[in-house]
């Protein structure tokens, strides 16, 4: 059985990816979450969907480097990892981050530093085994900073740059790094946007794109695909024009 590890397993995107995987064929799943009870509820759901899968739950502190290292070591010692999906994050409130550096620090830690540390911790054993896929969920917000969410965007930009460097480093190995950049997706994280009536991609569609990208080891996955075109335009808008836009 494939061994798939989900970091941030209660994230709705990760949960839907997990559903796709267990429903495709039985797998060994290690779910890592912050909250034991919530992660157990996700595990119970997956066990109903796939009684033949082996679903384990672990909890850890996501913004503590020592705890991250310990968690990853424990997982790897248990069974070699085929895929790790690093999916946690919080869509931070830009106004709060501007108002209070403590909120800003928390947003940068959980959305930027933490995913990078998880990826780094998995890289060593994967390189040693010379196999596996590390998939990290970044964001289209990381492609260009803009006033409405640049702290979150900067954290996701860190993830993007990190993934790019890792892909360069690992090019001659069998370890693949997949960077996923979802556009606005209908999840609890964006429920405020949804309540305001913004159109968003369905999480089922995004999860399918992620699973497909991971299966083929695609270096960068925009989902839905249209965001690749949108961000190409956004990234190339001259600053004089961009800075006049209210986005």
């Amino acid at each position, binding site marked *: 059985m494939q061994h798939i590890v989900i970091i941030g397993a209660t994230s*709705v995107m990760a949960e839907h990816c997990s559903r796709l995987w267990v*429903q495709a064929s039985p797998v060994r799943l290690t779910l890592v979450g912050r909250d034991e009870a919530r992660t157990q509820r996700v595990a*119970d759901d997956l066990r*109903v969907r796939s009684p033949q899968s082996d679903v384990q739950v672990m909890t850890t502190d996501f913004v503590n480097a020592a705890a991250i290292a310990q968690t990853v070591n424990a997982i790897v010692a248990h069974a070699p990892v085929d895929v790790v999906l690093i999916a946690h994050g919080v869509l931070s409130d830009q106004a709060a981050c501007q108002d209070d550096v403590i909120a800003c620090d928390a947003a940068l830690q959980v959305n930027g530093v933490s995913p990078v540390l998880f990826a780094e911790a998995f890289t060593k054993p994967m390189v040693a085994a010379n196999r596996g896929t590390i998939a990290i969920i970044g964001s289209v917000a990381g492609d260009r900073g803009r006033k409405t969410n640049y702290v979150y965007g900067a954290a996701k930009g860190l993830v993007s740059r990190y993934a790019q460097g890792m892909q360069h480093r690992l090019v001659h190995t069998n370890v693949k790094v997949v960077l996923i950049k979802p556009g606005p997706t209908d999840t*609890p994280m964006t*429920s405020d946007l*949804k*309540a305001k*009536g913004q159109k968003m991609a369905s999480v089922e569609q995004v999860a399918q794109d992620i699973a497909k990208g991971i299966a083929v080891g695609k270096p960068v996955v925009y989902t839905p695909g249209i965001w690749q075109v949108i961000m190409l335009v956004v990234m190339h808008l001259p600053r004089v024009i961009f800075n006049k836009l209210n986005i």
Partner: protein
Amino acid sequence: MKAVSAWGRLSDDLHDVQVLTDRTQVTSVMAAHQPGLAFGNGRSYGDVGLNPQGHLWHTTGLNKLMSFDETTGRLVCEAGVLLRDIQRLFVPRGWMLPVTPGTQLITVGGAIANDVHGKNHHAVGSFGDHVLRLTLARTSGEVLQLDWTTAPELMAATVGGLGLTGVVVSAELQLRRVGSPWLQTETLPYQGLPEFFELADASERDWEHTVSWIDCLSGPRLRGIFMRGNHMSQAQAEARPSLRAALAAQQRKASGKALAMPFVPPVSLVNGLSLKPFNVAYYQLQKLKSGLDVAHYEPFFYPLDNLQHWNRMYGPRGFYQYQSVVPREGGEAAVQAMLDAISASGEGSFLAVLKTFGNREAKGLLSFPMPGVTLALDFPSRGERTLRLFSKLDAIVREAGGRLYMAKDARMPRDLFEAGYPRLSEFIKHRDTGISSAMSRRLMEY
């Protein structure tokens, strides 16, 4: 605030939407945002699921399965799970929901709140007959575990209770065994209501699923198509090797992109010009298919689910669905009178469904199904003209001792509601005072 429409698209009032995602947090969301109303996948037609200018608690984020017993077929799941997801997961494992309506794109909570029925009502009853237990969150902060022995009254109020007794957080459902995803079907053209009733009665014993489409424009020489089906066992399905390839094709279709009505046309595509040829063509096409056949359960049960946003074809003003049930005694005359009134009005309906219900009472105090015959018709909204026709139909239903289906209704008068639902006074006692809907304000005190 967000504009929310029901399936009939008759209104798009603003709602203050809260998204429920964690079953342990439901009461705190309800307490902080009331009065409100649970909203599932938005497939009810009228105002049963709307609360304009008020709070709407979206339940589709509550979509976790909680447990399944492979030996008894008992499934516990959260209320926002879509029936489609249950079907697709469990049919390959030999289990299926015993009752589903004409769409599987509804939530478990919505199926309970409207006590929905399917083509097999005469054989197995309505959705509520297969609900074993419920977890109900009230705006008081209580979370109640209900079943038919310990809390029979609140169960009966909640099943078919239009979401007004609390928010169903999770439910235990009894699934039924099924040997394959296939049905043995038979299509029979018929002429006139007496022939319809003969077919319906003759099919009740040997066929689990029965339904019929009628051409409501065919006038005195009424014609229709009767469809019936039975689930095929594994052995029956395996005896037909061609079904294996057909199943693969069906699965590709199900996982691929569904067709969609891409925009709202400026006028209803269902209108005086299109309806007659459409109905004639549909009748002739179905007539060609008459006889025995095999069908996958998805196209057989949910023929419109593969055309996303089909409700848009009725244009910017939206549409009504008028679904009534009248007792069998006098039922034939009542159905004939309704069809005559429709013909005389010049209004018409493409999706016209006629079906007999079995001789059983539903468990819910406000459940729609009762012994008799049900007629469902779609009408593009043409304002006063359409409403005038409905008044005429109301009089026929009232006279016959029938009732209208709340899941479809957007306009029934209060006296018809009270006459059609005699157990209303028992129901009222169980309402959650922090819950209110456009429909409850229209037909009840608050």
